[in-house]
């Protein structure tokens, strides 16, 4: 299996909303990441997001009519979730989690027909990073872990992510 902790999604591969990129661009991203000392920091150009199943680049773009918030812009550029620890966002994230996620993952995140969100080991190790968790929620993974980017805004995904992190004691 390809590494879930992909260095190639970090670095200067262009806009996060770009479609699948030619190979030389991805090689360039790896080179830049390596040049950056594998710090995991995103370049100013943003991040190449990848699908959890096959690690192929995914297109991240707003849904029709979706407002791209400052938080989303910040996240797409830096890979850091600005809502982490934000009480207002956490409250909204909890409501969204109970609306969309608890059916499979249970209210406390221990999981039933969906994986546990509070284990030490995620099904997809990339979920340990904010970029990886966004990739799984936005573009989906296996089966019922649907691409929730079809259902909700990127801003809502960030709020859910911030709340899910609080479940992991």
């Amino acid at each position: 299996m390809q590494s879930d902790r992909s260095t190639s999604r970090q670095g200067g591969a262009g806009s996060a909303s770009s479609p699948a990129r030619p190979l030389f661009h991805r090689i360039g991203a790896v080179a830049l990441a390596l040049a950056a000392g594998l710090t995991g920091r995103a370049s100013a150009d943003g991040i190449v997001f990848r699908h959890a199943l096959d690690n192929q680049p995914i297109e991240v773009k707003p849904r029709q009519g979706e407002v791209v918030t400052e938080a989303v812009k910040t996240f797409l550029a830096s890979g850091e979730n600005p809502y982490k620890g934000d009480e207002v966002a956490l409250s909204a994230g909890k409501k969204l989690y109970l609306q969309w996620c608890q059916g499979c993952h249970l209210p406390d995140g221990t999981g039933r027909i969906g994986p546990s969100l509070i284990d030490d080991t995620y099904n997809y190790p990339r979920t340990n990073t904010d970029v990886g968790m966004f990739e799984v929620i936005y573009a989906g993974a296996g089966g019922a872990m649907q691409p929730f980017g079809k259902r909700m805004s990127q801003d809502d995904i960030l709020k859910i992510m911030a709340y899910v992190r609080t479940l992991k004691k």
Partner: protein
Amino acid sequence: MRLKVVARLLGIAALGLTLPVAAQTVPKSADEVARPGGKLPGTVNIALVKVADGFNDPTGVASAYDGTGRIFVVERVGRIRVVDKDGKVQEEPFLDLTKLNPLGSEVQTGFVEQGLWSVAFHPRFRENGHFFVHFSSLPFNGAALIVRFTVDPSSPNVVTAEQANKTAKVIMSIPQPYYNHYGGGMQFGPDGYLYIGKGDGGWEGDPLDAGQRLDTHLGKMLRIDVNVEDDSIPYKVPADNPFRAASRDQLMRLFGVTELDFSKIRIGAKPEIWAYGLRNPYMFHFDRKNGGLFIADVGQNHLEEINYQPANSKGGENYGWSRNMGTNCHPMTGPDDKCPQVGVLPIAEYPHEEPYPGAQKLTENWGCSAMALGVANYAGMDGVLLVGDWCSGRLWGVGWDKSANKWQMQELLHTSLQFTAGNTDEDGTVLAVNCYCFYLDDKGPTANPPGALWRVVAADQVPAGAEVARVRVR
């Protein structure tokens, strides 16, 4: 018995040959049951190629086997869509159960497990135009209805509301106590009888004990003869159904009767029952090559099971629910539960993420809802049941390993797809549909992102430019 019918269809008896008895046997002990991690005979490399998309919560798919190559995709809302042999989806539905009655839809879709589940075409559809649908009824308060309609030959791709109302014949109406565990699948067997999968009626834990009771259609495989043209008679019970006469009135005799004969008196037993002890047998398939029957029984909290009946089955199998789920005890309390194994063992089973209460969560080889997609006899597969999991997107093959004399279960793909159903095409190719349907915040059967129709092909036979399902790279 189906075996005789298969032999007759193949003309083997006329040639003076004997049909080889299928080598597959049903496990006699738990250690013979296949589990993930096995290896199918030979080398199997497959891919899922998209045929068409844009379907609202597709819940079923079928071929009419009429030589047209059409594929019929069932939408939960109550519509059947036609996909032509080139993959083009006809705009007008083949059947629209939402438009038959000016007072509203025929179909209850209030819960995600409710709706139109399946269509099955009569084995002589080309001559008689009959097809059968199975759905939860809005006018009948969620009861499961099986209705026969007849196509007007002058309009083969659209059954108008007028034609549907004119030809509708209700075959069965089965009351439903709760809004889940309906089952829903239907298939014609090689014997020409209609087989129907019925769930235990819902809630959880089978509170009605429907699986083990013979006085209810719930929790069963049913088998009926629909070859009745008299519209006042919905169907006949096949003469060899195992409980056909179990409840007949008779004089009481206490002496001179064997215990075996006493045991066959089952007052209240429904004559339509073919097999029992099932929880939610949504999808099941016959191997069109040998007449064997695979039943995927959706499990509860910890295990999914795949059952198999050889073609010479006489019916009457008890698959154990709710005393067992697969080889597990039910209710399951821990890893060391001890209980009798009731009835017939499955041929294969796979765990949920939590295989027993308190177990360490699995990261591989788990699922939560077994959908039998169809039996593959191509691409290196010989009588392999393809099982797609609704939760995990895993696609397993379950097949008989002649050299090892046992069943094998191998993960063939780990896909992004939320499998809901499958079937075989006219040429035996296995088809699958996936939804983006959901238990939470369900806004109805047309509100979800649309699902798609897929074809299972050998990996080296993917057409140039075709879209293939995303799979996990290992």
